[in-house]
């Protein structure tokens, strides 16, 4: 069981990284990754929302959606939107400093395909509660990892002279492509001989 959970975690975090393999969470990836501190905070916020989503998805799947599978998507998206709203209010009350630092990023987590993606993938793989939570940790960790690495590269590249023709999204996509290739090297990490 522990080996299975470890595989789920490592697979979600680096072998099948949510951003660099499944193309989820690209809006924050290209929008928020210009400073490492912001990227880290966004990543952590995402991990938190992902954990709650994994729990809610498991709960809905087990007790509610077996009777009405056609309501899956609507219920997931409503739960996610409400969770983000709730998290925003909670952070505002508990730590106004953090709330100010995250700013506009919080509401944007709702449309982050990674959150809904996690709920759907976990459903398709038939994960239980513990597996779902570990999956969320791995996925969130992977998102944060990709965000921070990208932020690091972009911070460094601010000192370079970049030709105008490639500046902006084009360059970021190419950097992401090279990062994705690098992460491909993690495949086969778990294989026993």
């Amino acid at each position, binding site marked *: 069981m522990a080996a299975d959970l470890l595989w789920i975690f490592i697979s979600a975090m680096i072998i099948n990284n949510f951003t660099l*393999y499944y193309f989820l969470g690209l809006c924050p990836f290209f929008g928020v990754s210009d400073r490492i501190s912001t990227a880290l905070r966004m990543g952590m916020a995402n991990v938190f929302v992902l954990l709650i989503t994994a729990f809610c998805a498991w709960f809905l799947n087990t007790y509610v959606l077996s009777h009405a599978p056609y309501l899956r*998507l609507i219920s997931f998206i*409503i739960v996610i939107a409400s969770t983000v709203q709730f998290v925003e209010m909670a952070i505002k009350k508990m730590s106004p400093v953090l709330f100010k630092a995250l700013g506009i990023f919080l509401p944007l987590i709702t449309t982050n395909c990674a959150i809904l993606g996690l709920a759907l993938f976990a459903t398709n793989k038939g994960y239980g509660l513990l597996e779902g939570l570990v999956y969320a940790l791995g996925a969130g960790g992977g998102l944060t990892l990709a965000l921070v690495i990208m932020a690091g590269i972009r911070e460094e590249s601010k000192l370079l002279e970049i030709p105008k023709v490639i500046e902006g*999204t084009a360059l970021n*996509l190419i950097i992401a*492509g090279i990062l994705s290739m690098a992460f491909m090297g993690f495949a086969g990490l778990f294989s026993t001989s």
Partner: protein
Amino acid sequence: MKNFEEAARYHEEFIKGLWKENPVFVAVLGMCPALAVTNTAINGLAMGGATLFVLTFSSLLVSSFRRYIPKEVRITTFVIIIATFVTIVDFLLQAFLPAIHKELGAFVALIVVNCLILGRQEAFSFKNPIRLAMVDALGMALGFTFALFCLGAIREILGNGSLFGVSLFGPSFEPWIVMILPPGGFLSLGFLLLFFNWLKQRKEQKQSLVYLADTVAEVAEKNEGIIYLKRGV
């Protein structure tokens, strides 16, 4: 259509989605599905088609009922409408095109968080009459499909040596496998955007050269007399 002006307006709203405001190439929206399912041309087309279905019907409903939806709950209502149509298209694909549904997987359901669809409702369908909203939706969705087809075709041709499953180069072609893998998605779109930027830059340079030439000619014309004097003629 009542007159020429109206027809021109429809034409403009339709055309903008195809190129000038292309959702993938210009606004860079909806990248998640754009990169994930474009490993073959047919998958790209299928995803575009599903998005077309969702966008046109959602815009139809939002525009039809725009006077009855209170501003405060508009986003939630949009999301309910969009999620309904996404679920419908998911079931329809599963029933009638199961092979394609298997290829697209959970990304059909992820159409609901495609910022393109919610964005069009908020920016256009909520504020415009039905026919105009439909024309905008069609234009945007077709532009999206076109972009996905381009990406899918490039990745399939380079990464598999085929288009629509038909082998193009024969068995001696060594496919550039990385193109149909995730890095290929990032790189293809990146280089495509680079190409479009380059085209735009060239166009701007040409235009500024023409402007420069015109200005020089103007100045030269004005100063013709002075030049002749200076030469001592």
